[in-house]
Protein backbone atom coordinates (compact mmCIF):
# COMPACT_ATOMS: atom_id res chain seq x y z
CA UNK A 1 0.00 0.00 0.00
CA UNK A 2 1.28 3.43 -0.85
CA UNK A 3 -0.10 6.47 0.83
CA UNK A 4 -0.20 9.64 -1.23
CA UNK A 5 -0.36 13.06 0.28
CA UNK A 6 -3.89 14.19 0.63
CA UNK A 7 -5.21 10.65 0.95
CA UNK A 8 -7.55 10.18 3.81
CA UNK A 9 -5.97 7.77 6.25
CA UNK A 10 -8.32 6.03 8.59
CA UNK A 11 -7.24 7.38 11.92
CA UNK A 12 -6.20 4.52 14.18
CA UNK A 13 -5.88 4.56 17.93
CA UNK A 14 -3.85 7.29 19.54
CA UNK A 15 -0.23 6.11 19.85
CA UNK A 16 1.55 9.11 21.27
CA UNK A 17 0.00 12.19 22.81
CA UNK A 18 0.93 15.11 25.02
CA UNK A 19 -1.31 17.38 27.04
CA UNK A 20 -0.76 20.88 28.46
CA UNK A 21 2.98 20.65 27.93
CA UNK A 22 5.02 23.50 29.39
CA UNK A 23 8.76 23.99 29.26
CA UNK A 24 10.71 27.08 30.28
CA UNK A 25 14.40 27.78 29.90
CA UNK A 26 14.94 30.75 32.19
CA UNK A 27 12.52 33.42 31.11
CA UNK A 28 11.96 31.79 27.74
CA UNK A 29 8.66 29.91 27.49
CA UNK A 30 9.66 27.31 24.90
CA UNK A 31 6.51 25.22 25.20
CA UNK A 32 3.42 27.11 26.26
CA UNK A 33 0.49 24.76 26.88
CA UNK A 34 1.13 22.55 23.87
CA UNK A 35 -1.17 19.64 23.07
CA UNK A 36 -0.21 16.95 20.58
CA UNK A 37 -1.86 13.77 19.37
CA UNK A 38 -0.53 11.24 16.89
CA UNK A 39 -2.80 8.44 15.74
CA UNK A 40 -1.54 5.08 14.53
CA UNK A 41 -0.30 5.32 10.94
CA UNK A 42 -0.42 9.10 10.61
CA UNK A 43 2.32 11.13 8.93
CA UNK A 44 2.51 14.49 10.68
CA UNK A 45 4.68 17.42 9.65
CA UNK A 46 5.71 20.13 12.09
CA UNK A 47 6.69 23.54 10.71
CA UNK A 48 7.32 26.91 12.26
CA UNK A 49 9.98 29.61 12.48
CA UNK A 50 13.24 29.06 14.36
CA UNK A 51 12.73 29.09 18.10
CA UNK A 52 9.09 28.06 17.81
CA UNK A 53 9.66 25.09 20.13
CA UNK A 54 9.52 22.31 17.52
CA UNK A 55 12.67 20.48 18.62
CA UNK A 56 11.78 20.89 22.29
CA UNK A 57 8.40 19.29 21.58
CA UNK A 58 10.18 16.39 19.88
CA UNK A 59 12.58 16.10 22.85
CA UNK A 60 9.66 15.99 25.26
CA UNK A 61 7.93 13.33 23.18
CA UNK A 62 11.14 11.28 22.93
CA UNK A 63 11.88 11.60 26.63
CA UNK A 64 15.22 13.37 26.41
CA UNK A 65 13.68 16.49 27.98
CA UNK A 66 11.22 16.39 30.89
CA UNK A 67 8.45 19.00 30.65
CA UNK A 68 7.92 21.40 33.58
CA UNK A 69 4.30 20.34 33.59
CA UNK A 70 1.93 18.37 31.42
CA UNK A 71 1.62 14.71 30.50
CA UNK A 72 3.05 12.55 27.72
CA UNK A 73 1.27 9.27 27.01
CA UNK A 74 2.36 6.32 24.92
CA UNK A 75 -0.47 3.94 24.04
CA UNK A 76 -2.49 5.72 26.71
CA UNK A 77 0.05 5.03 29.49
CA UNK A 78 1.76 7.94 31.24
CA UNK A 79 5.45 8.06 30.22
CA UNK A 80 6.17 11.66 31.22
CA UNK A 81 8.87 10.58 33.69
CA UNK A 82 10.36 7.67 31.77
CA UNK A 83 13.63 8.24 29.93
CA UNK A 84 14.35 7.96 26.22
CA UNK A 85 15.77 4.43 26.57
CA UNK A 86 12.46 3.15 27.95
CA UNK A 87 10.35 4.95 25.36
CA UNK A 88 12.59 3.71 22.59
CA UNK A 89 12.16 0.10 23.65
CA UNK A 90 8.41 0.71 23.73
CA UNK A 91 8.36 1.97 20.17
CA UNK A 92 9.44 5.60 19.92
CA UNK A 93 12.35 6.04 17.48
CA UNK A 94 14.17 9.31 17.10
CA UNK A 95 16.58 10.88 14.60
CA UNK A 96 18.43 14.03 15.66
CA UNK A 97 18.70 17.29 13.73
CA UNK A 98 22.48 17.19 13.79
CA UNK A 99 23.43 13.54 13.23
CA UNK A 100 25.04 12.00 16.29
CA UNK A 101 26.85 8.92 14.97
CA UNK A 102 28.90 6.76 17.31
CA UNK A 103 32.16 7.85 15.70
CA UNK A 104 34.38 5.10 17.06
CA UNK A 105 32.12 2.32 15.77
CA UNK A 106 31.41 1.10 12.26
CA UNK A 107 28.19 1.94 10.42
CA UNK A 108 27.05 -1.64 10.93
CA UNK A 109 27.76 -1.50 14.67
CA UNK A 110 25.84 1.79 14.93
CA UNK A 111 22.80 0.11 13.41
CA UNK A 112 23.25 -3.01 15.56
CA UNK A 113 22.94 -0.86 18.70
CA UNK A 114 19.43 0.11 17.58
CA UNK A 115 18.54 -3.44 16.56
CA UNK A 116 19.77 -5.15 19.74
CA UNK A 117 18.75 -2.58 22.36
CA UNK A 118 15.88 -0.64 20.83
CA UNK A 119 14.22 -3.52 18.98
CA UNK A 120 15.45 -6.14 21.47
CA UNK A 121 16.57 -8.53 18.75
CA UNK A 122 19.24 -11.15 19.35
CA UNK A 123 22.04 -12.74 17.34
CA UNK A 124 21.04 -13.74 13.80
CA UNK A 125 17.71 -11.96 14.00
CA UNK A 126 19.51 -8.73 14.86
CA UNK A 127 22.03 -9.34 12.07
CA UNK A 128 19.32 -9.96 9.45
CA UNK A 129 17.35 -6.92 10.56
CA UNK A 130 20.45 -4.69 10.50
CA UNK A 131 21.35 -5.81 6.98
CA UNK A 132 17.77 -5.08 5.89
CA UNK A 133 17.90 -1.60 7.43
CA UNK A 134 21.29 -0.89 5.82
CA UNK A 135 19.88 -1.94 2.46
CA UNK A 136 16.81 0.22 2.87
CA UNK A 137 18.89 3.25 3.84
CA UNK A 138 21.49 2.54 1.14
CA UNK A 139 24.38 2.12 3.52
CA UNK A 140 25.39 -1.46 2.69
CA UNK A 141 28.58 -0.42 0.90
CA UNK A 142 29.69 1.61 3.90
CA UNK A 143 28.78 -0.97 6.54
CA UNK A 144 32.35 -1.64 7.66
CA UNK A 145 33.47 2.01 7.65
CA UNK A 146 34.01 3.89 10.89
CA UNK A 147 31.12 6.31 11.33
CA UNK A 148 33.43 9.29 11.96
CA UNK A 149 34.68 9.04 8.37
CA UNK A 150 31.24 9.65 6.84
CA UNK A 151 30.15 12.81 5.02
CA UNK A 152 26.93 14.69 5.75
CA UNK A 153 24.61 12.70 3.46
CA UNK A 154 25.73 9.39 4.91
CA UNK A 155 25.64 10.71 8.45
CA UNK A 156 22.02 11.69 7.86
CA UNK A 157 21.24 8.28 6.41
CA UNK A 158 22.91 6.61 9.37
CA UNK A 159 20.98 8.75 11.85
CA UNK A 160 17.80 7.63 10.13
CA UNK A 161 18.94 3.98 9.80
CA UNK A 162 19.73 3.68 13.49
CA UNK A 163 16.30 4.97 14.44
CA UNK A 164 14.63 2.63 11.95
CA UNK A 165 16.66 -0.28 13.34
CA UNK A 166 14.88 0.12 16.69
CA UNK A 167 11.66 -0.97 14.93
CA UNK A 168 9.73 2.11 15.97
CA UNK A 169 5.96 2.40 15.84
CA UNK A 170 6.40 6.17 16.05
CA UNK A 171 9.36 7.74 14.27
CA UNK A 172 10.36 11.27 15.33
CA UNK A 173 12.45 13.00 12.67
CA UNK A 174 14.15 16.35 13.21
CA UNK A 175 15.16 18.21 10.03
CA UNK A 176 16.48 15.06 8.50
CA UNK A 177 16.37 16.69 5.04
CA UNK A 178 18.28 19.88 5.89
CA UNK A 179 21.46 20.33 3.87
CA UNK A 180 20.59 17.68 1.30
CA UNK A 181 20.20 18.22 -2.46
CA UNK A 182 16.80 17.67 -4.07
CA UNK A 183 17.84 14.28 -5.42
CA UNK A 184 19.14 13.19 -2.04
CA UNK A 185 15.98 14.45 -0.35
CA UNK A 186 13.87 12.49 -2.85
CA UNK A 187 15.49 9.21 -1.74
CA UNK A 188 14.78 10.14 1.84
CA UNK A 189 11.16 10.89 1.04
CA UNK A 190 10.79 7.50 -0.64
CA UNK A 191 12.19 5.74 2.44
CA UNK A 192 9.98 7.61 4.88
CA UNK A 193 6.89 6.99 2.76
CA UNK A 194 7.69 3.32 2.62
CA UNK A 195 7.99 3.19 6.41
CA UNK A 196 4.75 5.09 6.84
CA UNK A 197 3.00 2.79 4.39
CA UNK A 198 4.27 -0.10 6.48
CA UNK A 199 2.36 1.27 9.46
CA UNK A 200 4.96 3.47 11.17
CA UNK A 201 3.60 6.74 12.51
CA UNK A 202 5.85 9.57 11.35
CA UNK A 203 6.33 12.92 13.09
CA UNK A 204 8.65 15.08 11.01
CA UNK A 205 10.01 18.57 11.66
CA UNK A 206 11.22 20.13 8.41
CA UNK A 207 11.86 23.58 7.01
CA UNK A 208 11.78 22.44 3.38
CA UNK A 209 8.00 22.45 3.09
CA UNK A 210 7.72 21.05 -0.43
CA UNK A 211 9.67 17.97 0.66
CA UNK A 212 7.54 17.60 3.75
CA UNK A 213 4.31 17.81 1.77
CA UNK A 214 5.28 14.75 -0.26
CA UNK A 215 4.92 12.64 2.86
CA UNK A 216 2.62 14.13 5.46
CA UNK A 217 -1.14 14.04 5.60
CA UNK A 218 -1.39 16.38 8.54
CA UNK A 219 0.52 19.56 9.32
CA UNK A 220 1.12 21.33 12.62
CA UNK A 221 2.45 24.88 12.72
CA UNK A 222 4.12 26.19 15.85
CA UNK A 223 5.14 29.71 16.78
CA UNK A 224 6.57 31.10 20.03
CA UNK A 225 5.95 27.89 21.95
CA UNK A 226 2.36 27.39 20.86
CA UNK A 227 0.53 25.36 18.27
CA UNK A 228 -1.08 27.94 15.99
CA UNK A 229 -2.54 25.61 13.37
CA UNK A 230 -3.17 21.88 13.03
CA UNK A 231 -4.91 20.06 10.24
CA UNK A 232 -4.92 19.23 6.55
CA UNK A 233 -1.63 20.53 5.05
CA UNK A 234 -2.97 22.90 2.39
CA UNK A 235 -5.44 24.40 4.83
CA UNK A 236 -2.71 24.98 7.42
CA UNK A 237 -0.39 26.58 4.86
CA UNK A 238 -3.04 29.05 3.68
CA UNK A 239 -4.01 29.94 7.23
CA UNK A 240 -3.47 33.67 7.75
CA UNK A 241 -1.87 33.19 11.15
CA UNK A 242 0.63 30.73 9.71
CA UNK A 243 1.51 33.07 6.86
CA UNK A 244 2.11 35.81 9.40
CA UNK A 245 4.28 33.65 11.58
CA UNK A 246 6.44 32.64 8.64
CA UNK A 247 6.64 35.80 6.60
CA UNK A 248 6.13 38.35 9.32
CA UNK A 249 3.47 41.01 9.14
CA UNK A 250 5.45 43.08 6.66
CA UNK A 251 3.32 41.93 3.75
CA UNK A 252 0.37 44.11 4.65
Amino acid sequence: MTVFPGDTVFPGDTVLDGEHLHKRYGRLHVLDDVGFTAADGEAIGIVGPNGAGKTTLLNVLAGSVTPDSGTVRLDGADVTRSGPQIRCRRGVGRAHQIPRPFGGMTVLENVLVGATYGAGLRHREAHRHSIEVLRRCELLDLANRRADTLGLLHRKRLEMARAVATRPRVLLLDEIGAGLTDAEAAELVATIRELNAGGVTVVWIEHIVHVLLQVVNRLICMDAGRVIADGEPSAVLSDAVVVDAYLGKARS
Partner: protein
Amino acid sequence: MTALAYRIDRSSRASRIGSSVLIGLGLILATVPQFFVATVVQQLTSLFIFVILAVMWNALAGYGGLVSVGQQAFIGFGAYGTVFLAQRDVPPYLAVLLAAGASAVLAAVLAPLVLRLRGGPFAVGTWVVAETLALLVVLDHSLGGGTGVSLRGLNVFRPDERRAYTYWLALAFLVLLLGAVFVLLRGRTGAGLQAIRDDQEAAASLGVRVWPLKAGLYVLAGFGGGAAGALILANTLFIEPRSIFGVQWTAYMLFMVLVGGIGTFEGPLLGALLFFGVQYLFADYDAWYLIGLGLTAGAFALFLPRGLWSLVPVRLLPVGYHLRRDGPGVF
Protein backbone atom coordinates in the same frame (compact mmCIF):
# COMPACT_ATOMS: atom_id res chain seq x y z
CA MET B 1 14.69 -10.93 -8.53
CA THR B 2 18.32 -11.58 -7.83
CA ALA B 3 20.13 -9.49 -5.34
CA LEU B 4 23.39 -9.74 -3.50
CA ALA B 5 23.30 -11.75 -0.31
CA TYR B 6 25.06 -10.38 2.72
CA ARG B 7 25.97 -11.81 6.06
CA ILE B 8 27.67 -10.65 9.20
CA ASP B 9 30.85 -12.40 10.28
CA ARG B 10 32.05 -12.31 13.85
CA SER B 11 35.20 -14.40 13.43
CA SER B 12 37.84 -14.61 10.74
CA ARG B 13 40.69 -17.04 10.17
CA ALA B 14 43.01 -14.61 11.99
CA SER B 15 40.71 -14.42 15.01
CA ARG B 16 40.37 -18.22 15.12
CA ILE B 17 44.15 -18.63 15.04
CA GLY B 18 44.56 -15.73 17.50
CA SER B 19 42.15 -17.20 20.03
CA SER B 20 43.81 -20.61 19.83
CA VAL B 21 47.26 -19.06 20.30
CA LEU B 22 46.05 -17.09 23.35
CA ILE B 23 44.50 -20.18 24.94
CA GLY B 24 47.64 -22.22 24.17
CA LEU B 25 49.80 -19.47 25.63
CA GLY B 26 47.70 -19.48 28.80
CA LEU B 27 48.20 -23.25 29.19
CA ILE B 28 51.95 -22.97 28.63
CA LEU B 29 52.21 -20.10 31.11
CA ALA B 30 50.48 -22.22 33.73
CA THR B 31 53.47 -24.59 33.76
CA VAL B 32 56.14 -21.90 34.20
CA PRO B 33 56.66 -22.26 37.99
CA GLN B 34 57.66 -25.90 37.50
CA PHE B 35 60.52 -25.10 35.14
CA PHE B 36 61.84 -21.63 35.87
CA VAL B 37 63.80 -19.90 38.62
CA ALA B 38 62.20 -17.67 41.22
CA THR B 39 63.02 -14.33 39.60
CA VAL B 40 61.33 -15.34 36.33
CA VAL B 41 58.21 -16.42 38.21
CA GLN B 42 58.14 -13.20 40.19
CA GLN B 43 58.75 -11.03 37.11
CA LEU B 44 56.00 -12.78 35.16
CA THR B 45 53.64 -12.31 38.09
CA SER B 46 54.19 -8.57 37.94
CA LEU B 47 53.71 -8.70 34.15
CA PHE B 48 50.32 -10.39 34.69
CA ILE B 49 49.40 -7.66 37.17
CA PHE B 50 50.27 -5.00 34.61
CA VAL B 51 48.19 -6.79 31.99
CA ILE B 52 45.23 -6.91 34.41
CA LEU B 53 45.60 -3.17 35.06
CA ALA B 54 45.85 -2.33 31.36
CA VAL B 55 42.91 -4.53 30.35
CA MET B 56 40.71 -3.09 33.08
CA TRP B 57 41.57 0.52 32.35
CA ASN B 58 41.05 -0.04 28.65
CA ALA B 59 37.63 -1.59 29.29
CA LEU B 60 36.73 1.37 31.47
CA ALA B 61 38.12 4.24 29.39
CA GLY B 62 38.57 2.75 25.94
CA TYR B 63 35.22 0.99 25.67
CA GLY B 64 33.09 2.71 28.30
CA GLY B 65 34.47 6.24 27.93
CA LEU B 66 34.95 6.41 31.71
CA VAL B 67 38.38 8.05 31.82
CA SER B 68 39.24 7.46 35.45
CA VAL B 69 42.39 8.90 37.01
CA GLY B 70 41.61 7.16 40.28
CA GLN B 71 41.67 3.41 39.77
CA GLN B 72 44.49 3.36 42.33
CA ALA B 73 41.69 3.71 44.88
CA PHE B 74 40.79 0.08 44.17
CA ILE B 75 44.43 -1.04 43.88
CA GLY B 76 45.10 0.36 47.34
CA PHE B 77 41.81 -0.88 48.74
CA GLY B 78 42.47 -4.41 47.48
CA ALA B 79 45.98 -4.42 48.98
CA TYR B 80 44.98 -2.94 52.34
CA GLY B 81 41.84 -5.07 52.40
CA THR B 82 44.08 -8.13 52.16
CA VAL B 83 46.25 -6.86 55.03
CA PHE B 84 43.17 -6.08 57.10
CA LEU B 85 41.74 -9.59 56.61
CA ALA B 86 45.10 -11.32 57.11
CA GLN B 87 45.52 -9.48 60.43
CA ARG B 88 42.24 -11.13 61.45
CA ASP B 89 43.59 -14.61 60.72
CA VAL B 90 41.97 -15.08 57.34
CA PRO B 91 44.33 -17.28 55.24
CA PRO B 92 46.27 -14.82 53.02
CA TYR B 93 45.23 -16.21 49.63
CA LEU B 94 41.59 -16.31 50.69
CA ALA B 95 42.08 -12.72 51.88
CA VAL B 96 43.27 -11.79 48.37
CA LEU B 97 40.04 -13.17 46.86
CA LEU B 98 37.84 -11.52 49.48
CA ALA B 99 39.63 -8.17 49.10
CA ALA B 100 39.03 -8.23 45.34
CA GLY B 101 35.35 -8.88 46.02
CA ALA B 102 35.30 -6.08 48.59
CA SER B 103 36.75 -3.71 45.97
CA ALA B 104 33.85 -4.56 43.69
CA VAL B 105 31.47 -3.72 46.55
CA LEU B 106 33.33 -0.44 47.13
CA ALA B 107 32.91 0.36 43.42
CA ALA B 108 29.20 -0.40 43.63
CA VAL B 109 28.88 1.96 46.58
CA LEU B 110 30.89 4.71 44.86
CA ALA B 111 29.17 4.31 41.47
CA PRO B 112 26.04 6.39 42.23
CA LEU B 113 28.35 9.19 43.36
CA VAL B 114 31.14 9.33 40.79
CA LEU B 115 29.05 8.30 37.77
CA ARG B 116 27.01 11.47 38.16
CA LEU B 117 30.12 13.14 36.83
CA ARG B 118 31.32 12.93 33.25
CA GLY B 119 34.48 13.81 31.37
CA GLY B 120 36.95 16.04 33.23
CA PRO B 121 34.99 16.23 36.48
CA PHE B 122 34.72 12.42 36.52
CA ALA B 123 38.49 12.10 36.14
CA VAL B 124 39.12 14.56 38.98
CA GLY B 125 36.39 13.01 41.14
CA THR B 126 37.89 9.53 40.91
CA TRP B 127 41.30 10.91 41.83
CA VAL B 128 39.83 12.66 44.88
CA VAL B 129 38.31 9.34 46.00
CA ALA B 130 41.71 7.65 45.74
CA GLU B 131 43.48 10.40 47.71
CA THR B 132 40.77 10.29 50.38
CA LEU B 133 41.19 6.55 50.84
CA ALA B 134 44.98 6.99 51.06
CA LEU B 135 44.56 9.60 53.82
CA LEU B 136 42.19 7.35 55.75
CA VAL B 137 44.75 4.53 55.64
CA VAL B 138 47.56 6.85 56.79
CA LEU B 139 45.46 7.79 59.81
CA ASP B 140 44.90 4.16 60.78
CA HIS B 141 47.84 2.92 62.87
CA SER B 142 46.71 -0.71 62.89
CA LEU B 143 47.31 -0.67 59.11
CA GLY B 144 50.81 0.70 59.60
CA GLY B 145 49.94 4.37 59.12
CA GLY B 146 52.12 6.23 56.66
CA THR B 147 55.11 3.91 57.02
CA GLY B 148 53.58 0.87 55.40
CA VAL B 149 52.76 -2.68 56.39
CA SER B 150 53.79 -6.23 55.46
CA LEU B 151 51.59 -9.17 54.67
CA ARG B 152 51.96 -11.80 57.36
CA GLY B 153 50.80 -15.38 57.19
CA LEU B 154 52.51 -16.30 53.93
CA ASN B 155 55.54 -17.65 55.83
CA VAL B 156 53.74 -20.97 56.26
CA PHE B 157 54.77 -21.62 52.63
CA ARG B 158 58.30 -22.15 51.37
CA PRO B 159 59.42 -19.09 49.29
CA ASP B 160 59.29 -20.89 45.93
CA GLU B 161 55.92 -22.42 46.82
CA ARG B 162 54.65 -19.01 47.78
CA ARG B 163 55.85 -17.48 44.50
CA ALA B 164 54.24 -20.28 42.51
CA TYR B 165 50.88 -19.90 44.27
CA THR B 166 50.92 -16.13 43.79
CA TYR B 167 51.84 -16.66 40.16
CA TRP B 168 48.98 -19.06 39.57
CA LEU B 169 46.53 -16.82 41.35
CA ALA B 170 47.63 -13.85 39.20
CA LEU B 171 47.28 -15.97 36.06
CA ALA B 172 43.84 -17.15 37.16
CA PHE B 173 42.67 -13.57 37.79
CA LEU B 174 44.09 -12.53 34.44
CA VAL B 175 42.29 -15.32 32.56
CA LEU B 176 39.06 -14.63 34.46
CA LEU B 177 39.15 -10.88 33.74
CA LEU B 178 40.15 -11.31 30.09
CA GLY B 179 37.29 -13.78 29.76
CA ALA B 180 34.86 -11.37 31.39
CA VAL B 181 35.88 -8.52 29.08
CA PHE B 182 35.65 -10.85 26.09
CA VAL B 183 32.11 -11.96 26.99
CA LEU B 184 31.14 -8.34 27.59
CA LEU B 185 32.46 -7.21 24.21
CA ARG B 186 31.24 -10.21 22.29
CA GLY B 187 27.62 -9.65 23.33
CA ARG B 188 25.48 -6.60 22.72
CA THR B 189 26.91 -4.94 25.86
CA GLY B 190 30.12 -4.25 23.90
CA ALA B 191 28.25 -2.22 21.31
CA GLY B 192 26.11 -0.59 24.01
CA LEU B 193 29.15 0.55 26.01
CA GLN B 194 30.90 1.96 22.97
CA ALA B 195 27.72 3.79 22.03
CA ILE B 196 27.63 5.37 25.51
CA ARG B 197 31.30 6.29 25.15
CA ASP B 198 30.69 8.06 21.83
CA ASP B 199 27.38 9.78 22.65
CA GLN B 200 25.48 8.96 25.81
CA GLU B 201 22.27 10.77 24.84
CA ALA B 202 22.13 9.21 21.39
CA ALA B 203 22.73 5.79 22.95
CA ALA B 204 19.78 6.32 25.30
CA SER B 205 17.56 7.36 22.40
CA LEU B 206 18.36 4.00 20.76
CA GLY B 207 17.21 2.10 23.84
CA VAL B 208 20.56 1.53 25.60
CA ARG B 209 20.19 1.29 29.39
CA VAL B 210 22.96 3.75 30.20
CA TRP B 211 23.12 3.60 33.98
CA PRO B 212 23.30 -0.19 34.58
CA LEU B 213 25.90 -0.61 31.84
CA LYS B 214 28.16 2.13 33.17
CA ALA B 215 27.75 0.99 36.76
CA GLY B 216 28.40 -2.64 35.81
CA LEU B 217 31.58 -1.71 33.99
CA TYR B 218 32.76 0.46 36.89
CA VAL B 219 32.19 -2.42 39.32
CA LEU B 220 34.08 -4.85 37.07
CA ALA B 221 36.99 -2.39 36.84
CA GLY B 222 36.86 -1.97 40.63
CA PHE B 223 37.08 -5.72 41.06
CA GLY B 224 40.01 -5.91 38.62
CA GLY B 225 41.82 -3.04 40.34
CA GLY B 226 41.29 -4.62 43.75
CA ALA B 227 42.57 -7.97 42.50
CA ALA B 228 45.65 -6.27 41.03
CA GLY B 229 46.31 -4.46 44.32
CA ALA B 230 45.95 -7.61 46.39
CA LEU B 231 48.29 -9.44 44.00
CA ILE B 232 50.87 -6.64 44.14
CA LEU B 233 50.91 -7.11 47.89
CA ALA B 234 51.15 -10.90 47.62
CA ASN B 235 54.01 -10.51 45.14
CA THR B 236 56.05 -7.90 47.04
CA LEU B 237 54.82 -8.65 50.60
CA PHE B 238 55.10 -4.99 51.62
CA ILE B 239 53.09 -1.89 50.77
CA GLU B 240 52.92 1.70 51.90
CA PRO B 241 49.97 4.04 51.27
CA ARG B 242 51.84 6.72 49.27
CA SER B 243 52.84 4.28 46.56
CA ILE B 244 49.93 1.82 46.48
CA PHE B 245 47.40 4.69 46.31
CA GLY B 246 49.74 6.72 44.05
CA VAL B 247 48.62 8.29 40.82
CA GLN B 248 51.60 6.69 39.07
CA TRP B 249 49.42 3.59 38.55
CA THR B 250 47.16 5.67 36.37
CA ALA B 251 50.19 6.97 34.48
CA TYR B 252 51.27 3.35 33.87
CA MET B 253 47.80 2.33 32.71
CA LEU B 254 47.57 5.35 30.42
CA PHE B 255 50.93 4.47 28.92
CA MET B 256 50.08 0.82 28.34
CA VAL B 257 46.66 1.50 26.88
CA LEU B 258 47.55 4.53 24.74
CA VAL B 259 50.70 2.98 23.31
CA GLY B 260 49.12 -0.43 22.76
CA GLY B 261 45.84 0.80 21.34
CA ILE B 262 42.90 2.22 23.25
CA GLY B 263 39.52 0.66 22.52
CA THR B 264 40.95 -2.55 21.07
CA PHE B 265 41.01 -5.90 22.84
CA GLU B 266 44.60 -6.64 21.88
CA GLY B 267 46.15 -3.19 22.38
CA PRO B 268 46.51 -3.29 26.17
CA LEU B 269 48.12 -6.75 26.02
CA LEU B 270 50.75 -5.38 23.67
CA GLY B 271 51.05 -2.18 25.72
CA ALA B 272 51.61 -4.11 28.95
CA LEU B 273 54.38 -6.18 27.32
CA LEU B 274 56.08 -3.03 26.05
CA PHE B 275 55.71 -1.28 29.38
CA PHE B 276 57.19 -4.28 31.14
CA GLY B 277 60.22 -4.13 28.86
CA VAL B 278 60.59 -0.37 29.20
CA GLN B 279 60.38 -0.62 32.97
CA TYR B 280 62.98 -3.40 33.04
CA LEU B 281 65.42 -1.33 30.97
CA PHE B 282 64.86 2.21 32.25
CA ALA B 283 63.32 2.08 35.74
CA ASP B 284 66.69 3.03 37.30
CA TYR B 285 66.56 6.47 35.69
CA ASP B 286 63.80 7.48 38.14
CA ALA B 287 62.48 10.95 37.28
CA TRP B 288 63.73 10.79 33.69
CA TYR B 289 62.03 7.42 33.32
CA LEU B 290 58.68 8.90 34.35
CA ILE B 291 59.16 11.93 32.10
CA GLY B 292 59.95 9.56 29.24
CA LEU B 293 56.81 7.54 29.91
CA GLY B 294 54.70 10.68 29.93
CA LEU B 295 56.25 12.05 26.73
CA THR B 296 55.78 8.73 24.92
CA ALA B 297 52.13 8.39 25.98
CA GLY B 298 51.54 12.03 25.00
CA ALA B 299 53.17 11.53 21.61
CA PHE B 300 50.98 8.50 20.95
CA ALA B 301 47.83 10.38 21.98
CA LEU B 302 48.73 13.14 19.50
CA PHE B 303 50.15 11.26 16.55
CA LEU B 304 48.85 7.70 16.78
CA PRO B 305 45.70 8.06 18.88
CA ARG B 306 44.61 4.48 18.33
CA GLY B 307 47.97 3.06 19.34
CA LEU B 308 50.30 0.49 17.85
CA TRP B 309 47.61 -2.13 17.37
CA SER B 310 45.85 0.15 14.89
CA LEU B 311 48.78 -0.54 12.54
CA VAL B 312 48.00 -4.27 12.66
CA PRO B 313 45.10 -5.07 10.32
CA VAL B 314 44.13 -8.19 12.28
CA ARG B 315 41.76 -8.90 15.12
CA LEU B 316 42.95 -11.71 17.34
CA LEU B 317 39.58 -12.22 19.00
CA PRO B 318 36.12 -12.40 17.46
CA VAL B 319 34.58 -9.35 19.15
CA GLY B 320 33.86 -7.23 16.08
CA TYR B 321 31.33 -7.35 13.29
CA HIS B 322 32.10 -7.51 9.60
CA LEU B 323 29.57 -7.31 6.78
CA ARG B 324 30.47 -9.71 3.97
CA ARG B 325 28.99 -10.08 0.54
CA ASP B 326 28.32 -13.70 -0.24
CA GLY B 327 28.14 -13.15 -3.97
CA PRO B 328 24.98 -13.23 -6.06
CA GLY B 329 22.08 -14.81 -4.31
CA VAL B 330 18.35 -14.99 -4.70
CA PHE B 331 15.80 -13.42 -2.40
